[in-house]
């Protein structure tokens, strides 16, 4: 392997680690669910792609037949994660939105109906909430 390629792959791996550090701190420190999702979706995907590219360059080495196949497989993983990770983040975000998770705001006055989404005004009716509450109360009393 040429020295230049080696250095290039190391730079890719290290930059991937830096982006993953950002994602991890974001998941730890962001105030509410939606912003945490933001960190998870973007930083995770980008860091995975960068590290995988670096590892693929490492593996290719001196361009043998089988190692090229392995490098293609590694890049396939990168493509797979690039497709699936944002999709799953989007779906989980949608699930949380339908679930009625309230985003944090400065004046703490945002109600769930202010967002104009298809929220659970009637589906999560007061009756079912009350029913669940009494059920848990009954359990606690026991």
């Amino acid at each position, binding site marked *: 392997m040429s020295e230049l390629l080696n250095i290039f792959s190391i730079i890719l791996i290290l930059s991937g680690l830096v982006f993953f550090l950002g994602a991890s701190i974001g998941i730890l420190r962001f105030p509410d669910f939606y912003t945490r999702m933001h960190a998870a979706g973007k930083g995770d995907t980008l860091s995975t792609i960068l590290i995988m590219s670096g590892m693929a360059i490492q593996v290719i080495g001196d361009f*043998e037949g*089988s*190692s090229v196949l*392995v490098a293609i497989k590694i890049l396939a993983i990168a493509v797979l994660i690039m497709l699936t990770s944002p999709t799953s983040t989007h779906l989980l975000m949608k699930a949380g939105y339908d679930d009625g998770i309230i985003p944090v705001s400065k004046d703490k006055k945002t109600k769930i109906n202010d967002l104009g989404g298809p929220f659970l005004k009637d589906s999560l009716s007061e009756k079912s909430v009350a029913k669940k509450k009494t059920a848990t109360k009954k*359990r606690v009393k*026991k």
Partner: protein
Amino acid sequence: MDIIIASFLEDSIVPKFNYWIYVILMMIGLYAMITKNNLIKKLIGMAIFQTAIILLYVSVGVKADANIPIISHHGEKDHVEHAQNENLDSASEASSHHGSKKEHHVIDKNKFANPLPHVLMLTAIVVGVSTLGLALAISQKVHGSFGTLEEDEILDQLRPGGYD
């Protein structure tokens, strides 16, 4: 006191850390199975318990300098060839380069991990999946007929004179 702790660390924790990990995992699983009230949590405890047993078996099969138990002739020429040159006498190496199928490398058994625990645990995982699926089905049925998955509530309903 420090010496006792240090010698304990050196004798029984560091060279045997796999057993410590498996015992801790197994204790978590057993605790969940004994004390949790929810049937699903009990099942999760059972899964953790199985994982601990799998970890014990696989870690017994580990050798210090060994790789996974797959002999690779093609691919990674440099590494594999390098690893096998150490235990090849020149004659068999020469014959293997002629590509004759009958001659085989002398396989150093310390270069490969023990395959037997892997096979046993593969079947154990399969049995674990089967039992877990069946247990989930039965607990769904329990939830359908009792309306709850909490063990004490189910026992209350089963008791004569309970509300039902």
